[in-house]
């Protein structure tokens, strides 16, 4: 399974890398597509608070194991997109930045302390945090971007971060790997805390 997950992540990274030469073009349909794809791919990875939370979702899925490996990364993008739709339509949701920072801190803490709640609790928690991330992305999306390319890039980049987290989370099979994963969880929790307290 680890090998398979690694292959998926490698494939996604190669795909992401292969898009880069096409980004040099501009204008016309191709320019619109690649420009939108570029914006979408970059959007989830330009904010550290977003990145760490996405990776934490995957890491936590890897720690929980079983169905959580796919349930959390399946629930997250769907809820995120619904909240993104609210953001795109200008429907406000309170406490977005606080929620995003809190998501890194809480999910990082879950990884650090290897918390294993019932599946429903994990799904609800991850889904709730997805609302904040999705709304922020939806609100910030550029007007000029090619919508389909932007949305595809945005979802793919988010999914790639989840898969990277899952792949890394597979290291928990080994004692030294568990230490490494928990250390990353601690770093994520600290990052979230820094954003929450305004230090970052």
């Amino acid at each position: 399974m680890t090998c398979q997950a690694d292959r998926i992540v490698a494939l996604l990274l190669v795909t992401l890398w292969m898009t880069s030469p096409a980004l040099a073009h501009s204008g016309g349909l191709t320019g619109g597509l690649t420009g939108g794809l570029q914006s979408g791919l970059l959007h989830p990875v330009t904010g550290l608070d977003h990145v760490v939370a996405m990776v934490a979702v995957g890491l936590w899925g890897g720690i929980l194991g079983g169905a959580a490996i796919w349930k959390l990364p399946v629930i997250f993008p769907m809820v995120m997109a619904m909240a993104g739709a609210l953001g795109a339509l200008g429907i406000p949701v309170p406490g977005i930045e606080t929620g995003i920072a809190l998501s890194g801190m809480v999910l990082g803490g879950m990884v650090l302390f290897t918390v294993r709640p019932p599946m429903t609790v994990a799904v609800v928690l991850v889904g709730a945090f997805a609302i904040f991330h999705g709304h922020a992305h939806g609100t910030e999306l550029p007007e000029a971007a090619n919508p389909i390319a932007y949305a595809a890039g945005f979802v793919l980049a988010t999914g790639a971060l989840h898969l990277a987290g899952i792949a890394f989370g597979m290291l928990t099979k080994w004692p030294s790997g568990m230490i490494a994963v928990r250390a990353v969880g601690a770093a994520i929790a600290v990052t979230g805390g820094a954003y929450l307290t305004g230090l970052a």
Partner: protein
Amino acid sequence: MIRLVALALCAASPAAAHGSLPVGDGFASGVAHPFLAGEHLLLLVGLGALLGRQDSRRPLPGLVAGLICGLGLAVLQPGPMRPAILVLALGIGGVLAAALRVGAGVLTVIALAAGLFIGADTDGSTTIAAFAGVVAGVFMIVLNSMALARYGAARPGGVPLRIAGSWIVAVAILLLAFLLREGMWPA
């Protein structure tokens, strides 16, 4: 699922504010059309994944019939089919994400609807060569997606297909929101 197709049909019918997607005159431009029209690509990848997951080829003639009917409909200039295409893609993505089994009859209806919407989302003046190209392009996407989906379905729990389904749902929701924001959702 039948309800979903009906909803997609309802979403399609009143839309008349914007023109359909141009295809061009030649076979090659027709082939390129479903690849460049993002909504088409999303729907066709989802459809191929669904058919591949269930290892069902029987609905494919329904897809061709839908495309031909859709082209006939395009002559009547029914307006853009993007909302209908996205609603159908959303439903297919949901079925994939939830790993729901779908009957062969329903699969055929879905394939027919997908073909109808994509065929109708061309300009009415498309040449026979260009339309043949559209059919070829559609099948290139669907058949390749079917092949990949069979690989994904063989994994424990069909996890790759569930994740792909959730991504299709997410993209479709975001695009529907864009349409709504741009005032392109049918009144």
